[in-house]
């Protein structure tokens, strides 16, 4: 049923739980599995270095996330394609899903604080709204 699965990972424990589900689905369906990590850049920065430092910080964090994900994928004998892209998470993930013609997006519950989620909405809410494919939210 699923040929191309995309897993969005922000490095949180919730995302790693979702990775487990994505690996399981990819193995069962013999699907191609992609994992995307998004470096969220500050909007309207004052200096270029602010942008560079944010990227370096994210790259450092995601190197560890990717290493951990690859080890899990190897254990399940699944081939994992990891991608690190910069930008707004919702826009980047949905555009990537569209470009890759993904059948299924698997994500953990990616949010902010309870107040932020209530007022502005969580990243997951918007992914469910805007993704061009089915979305599995793992809690």
């Amino acid at each position, binding site marked *: 049923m699923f040929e191309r699965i995309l897993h969005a990972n922000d490095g949180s424990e919730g995302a790693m739980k979702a990775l487990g589900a994505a690996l399981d689905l990819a193995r069962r369906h013999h699907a191609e599995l992609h994992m995307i990590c998004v470096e969220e850049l*500050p*909007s*309207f920065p*004052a*200096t*270029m270095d602010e*942008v560079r430092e944010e990227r370096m910080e994210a790259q450092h964090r995601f190197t560890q996330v990717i290493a951990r994900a690859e080890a899990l994928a190897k254990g399940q004998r699944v081939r994992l*394609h990891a*991608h690190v*892209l910069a930008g707004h998470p919702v826009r980047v993930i949905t555009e990537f899903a569209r470009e890759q013609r993904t059948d299924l997006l698997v994500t953990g519950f990616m949010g902010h604080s309870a107040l932020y989620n209530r007022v502005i909405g969580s990243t997951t809410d918007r992914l469910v709204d805007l993704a061009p494919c089915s979305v599995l939210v793992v809690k």
Partner: protein
Amino acid sequence: MENPWLASALWIGLALVASVLSIWVAMSVALVEIVVGAVAGNLFGLPIAPWVDYLAGFGAILLTFLAGSEIDPQVVCRHFWSAMSIGVMGFLAPYAGVLLYAHYVAGWAWPQAQIAGIALSTTSVAVVYAVMVETGYNQTTLGKIILAACFVNDLGTVLALGIIFAQATVWLAVFAAATALALWFLPRFAPWFFSRVGHRVSEPETKFVALVLFFLGGLASVAGSEAVLPAYLVGMALAPAFLKDPELPHRMRVVAFTILTPFYFLKAGSLVRLDAVIGGAGLIAVFLAVKMATKFVGILPLTRTFRFGRREGMYTTLLMSTGLTFGTISALFGLNKGIIDQAQYTILVTAVIGSAVVPTLIAQRWFQPAEAPPKAAAPAEEAEHV
């Protein structure tokens, strides 16, 4: 608040709140500091002691210096004509347009209209750079030309700020001569000096740079000019040395963003009056519209001349309509010198903040170039692990 330590605690507390908020909402700490400063200033009034003025002023000088040091001279040389013409028009068109509107339509006096023109002539290199990184255009020729043009645009702004209000006295000649000498001498001497003293906890390199900035800034001030002018020029002169040794500007940024620029941005925000924002909402919108319209008049035809595609041309023009740091620096200069009043300052700063947000959103939503650079082909932007 008389007690300097309690006053410091208040300012640094607000800076800390702004830092945490900026991480939470993924926005620039500078923008959040302006907003926090505005809220605090309107709610309970932030006391601005002379030492706050000093730290804020030093913050603005260091911020301008660091902005100048981010230029890549090789890129400017390689795309000299396109970067120069787009950058010059990017400054001149909005400067003239806003100046004339402020004077003839809004009824501002010439010096006040000059400040408006300068404050809204800017381009935010950092905002443009962030959008380029997001879209992958920072790796392309188009992206490099746009960034180089932004530096030229901002150079126009600091030159205007430094020259228009200067008095033609002997001190102006002394200041000009000292700056010219420093710009010739520094690229030769500084790399040698930096290599001799090395990276030490006592930071001799940072002290050397501060010495140059204070001295030239002092001469600028005596000449009736503005200290950010030599700061930007010295930053540009030292850019090649900083490109070779990025650790030094990084350490200077840590110093600046920890204890100096928060005072500058919080102060800039605290002087924004809510009643003036409400009362001047129409003028704020018109100034923003004039800035964007004149950027289009100045830049869009040049993008055609240099054979940018239609969407690329629109995208470039919109990105160059952004502005933040130099806009607030120009408006604060006007307020500090008594050229504009607080209501006019409020109108200009709010329009400047609007110019950081509105053109970026329009560019990203409707005018991303049709043929985006292939992300998989840009190794710095994407790493594939199998």
